[in-house]
């Protein structure tokens, strides 16, 4: 099982000091957070993609390429890549390039985005969100698997004799997750391709998340990729920790109360009860996260949202120390215990390459017979 963090990349005023970081400071903070993730033994860093203030990460492969050069083990991912408004040809090229530079430590998560004006800014129509996600991803899927693509669709100019370069590293496309909070079409899409399904699991009660995950698992089996409990599931989570849980609540409350997403709405206590948000001791985070398995089955990737709502970098780095040193080692051990042998690990480049080589060897053996 993989553990990591995902960042929205918001520039938010620290409500306790009134200080707002510059874009440059926030970009630098995201990089330092990613490096820290590797240092404390986490597996994955994923960045959001946004094209409007107050968010900085508009160019994920630039940022991830830089982080790739300064890390050795960390898997670099996105949360999410806008499959609706990006040209799928450019996604194919950008992430294949990143895959080469990062030695295969790359996967990505497709999403539709939640900012209405981004669609018209990029020449698209938000009412076509799902059809765009379906058609664009289908083209992207082909571009990474077919050397020469002839293609015609509704949303982009046709392609004749097109080869996306560079070709994926070792001929193995980056693994793809599809993220959606509540669109059954996206769970269906992930299941159809045998790709991963990620639920951000942060803003909604578990019963909503469970409906999406259950649908994806059932349809994964329907499309013949394996059993439902072998489908590739990723979940988000949101935590704030101090050794003493009262200290965590006291310190996090002003950030919660003023957070851009849910601030000035429900109380911290209400939101903690209704959603997976956990504010407390490392042990409370461990207990709550372990319960995800009861709700959603054994899964492959757990990402935490740690740097948002104006939390200062120093605090976020302290949080990552706690996460890496006290929480994740226990989660690794506990999630491994009782995990059925047929439940796969999260796909990695090495694993996908080995599977591809096995398949090729089998095919050669068949042909020789």
């Amino acid at each position, binding site marked *: 099982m993989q553990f990591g963090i995902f960042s929205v990349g918001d520039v938010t005023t620290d409500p306790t000091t009134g200080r707002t970081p510059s874009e440059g400071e926030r970009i630098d903070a995201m990089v330092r957070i990613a490096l820290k993730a590797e240092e404390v033994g986490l597996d994955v860093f994923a960045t959001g993609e946004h094209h409007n203030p107050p968010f900085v990460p508009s160019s994920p492969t630039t940022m991830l390429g830089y982080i790739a050069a300064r890390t050795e083990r960390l898997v670099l991912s996105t949360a999410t890549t806008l499959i609706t408004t990006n040209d799928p040809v450019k996604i194919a090229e950008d992430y294949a390039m990143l895959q080469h530079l990062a030695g295969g430590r790359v996967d990505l998560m497709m999403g539709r985005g939640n900012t209405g004006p981004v669609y018209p800014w990029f020449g698209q129509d938000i009412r076509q969100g799902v059809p765009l996600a379906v058609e664009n991803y289908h083209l992207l899927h082909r571009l990474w698997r077919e050397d020469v693509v002839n293609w015609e669709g509704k949303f982009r100019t046709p392609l004749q004799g097109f080869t996306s370069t560079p070709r994926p590293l070792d001929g193995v496309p980056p693994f793809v997750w599809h993220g959606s909070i509540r669109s*059954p*079409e996206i769970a269906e*899409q992930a*299941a159809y391709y045998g790709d991963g399904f990620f639920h951000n699991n942060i803003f909604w009660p578990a019963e909503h998340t469970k409906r999406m995950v259950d649908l994806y698992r059932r349809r994964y089996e329907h499309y013949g990729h394996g059993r439902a409990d072998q489908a590739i599931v990723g979940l988000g989570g949101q935590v704030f920790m101090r050794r003493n849980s009262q200290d965590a609540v006291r310190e996090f409350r002003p950030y919660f109360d003023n957070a851009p*997403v849910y601030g000035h*709405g*429900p109380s911290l206590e209400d939101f903690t009860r*209704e959603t997976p948000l956990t504010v407390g001791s490392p042990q409370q985070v461990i207990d709550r996260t372990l319960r995800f398995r009861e709700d959603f089955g054994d899964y492959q990737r757990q990402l935490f949202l740690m740097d948002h709502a104006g939390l200062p970098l120093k605090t976020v780095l302290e949080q990552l120390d706690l996460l890496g040193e006290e929480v994740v080692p226990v989660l690794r051990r506990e999630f491994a215990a009782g995990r059925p042998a047929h439940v796969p690990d999260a796909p990695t480049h090495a694993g996908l390459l080995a599977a591809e080589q096995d398949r090729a060897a089998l095919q050669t053996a068949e042909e020789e017979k």
Partner: protein
Amino acid sequence: MTEPRITAVSAGLSVPSSTRLLADRLTGAADRALRERGAAPAAEAVELRDHAHALTDNLLTGFPSGDLKAAVDAASRADGLIAVTPIFNASYSGLFKTFFDVLEEGALQGTPVLIAATGGTPRHSLALEHALRPMFAYLRAVTVPTAVYAASEDWGAGGAAHGGLASRIDRAAGEFADLVAGRSAAARPDPYDEPVPFERLLSGE
């Protein structure tokens, strides 16, 4: 015998409120009218004042928390809805609108709705026609032809006389009962149980 679920949503702010009083009168009349038509209705009252904070939270977080979830479900699953609001500034109250703003898209599609309102003066009665009825039309609900407005003075007026409050309540309840009783209980497909197969999504149908 059918057992239609009737949900009465009222948005009065005081306790007790004349809005709730009107909702209860309509619920009672609808219950009698449905029984006359051979049905055995089960009625549930949703008092929006009780969910005022949760409704604001829902606007900000996107999901109904706690008891509001049950209220939202009661409205969404109803076979017939009675919706009563005080008239503020020539329209429904903000609390009333907020409740219908947080329902899932299509939640009231095809649902018979009896619209009613209260106000201090009868001069605001047409707010039912220019504010409530268009909103429910937009939600693809089926509004009952008679909308019931109760001004303060109606509570002291003779009820039985033609055109009085009691006769308006009975006429609206009868129309409502006809719609509810005549409605086939068409279950809406659950997109999580029955997803659109991907080949169809891919073909752009």
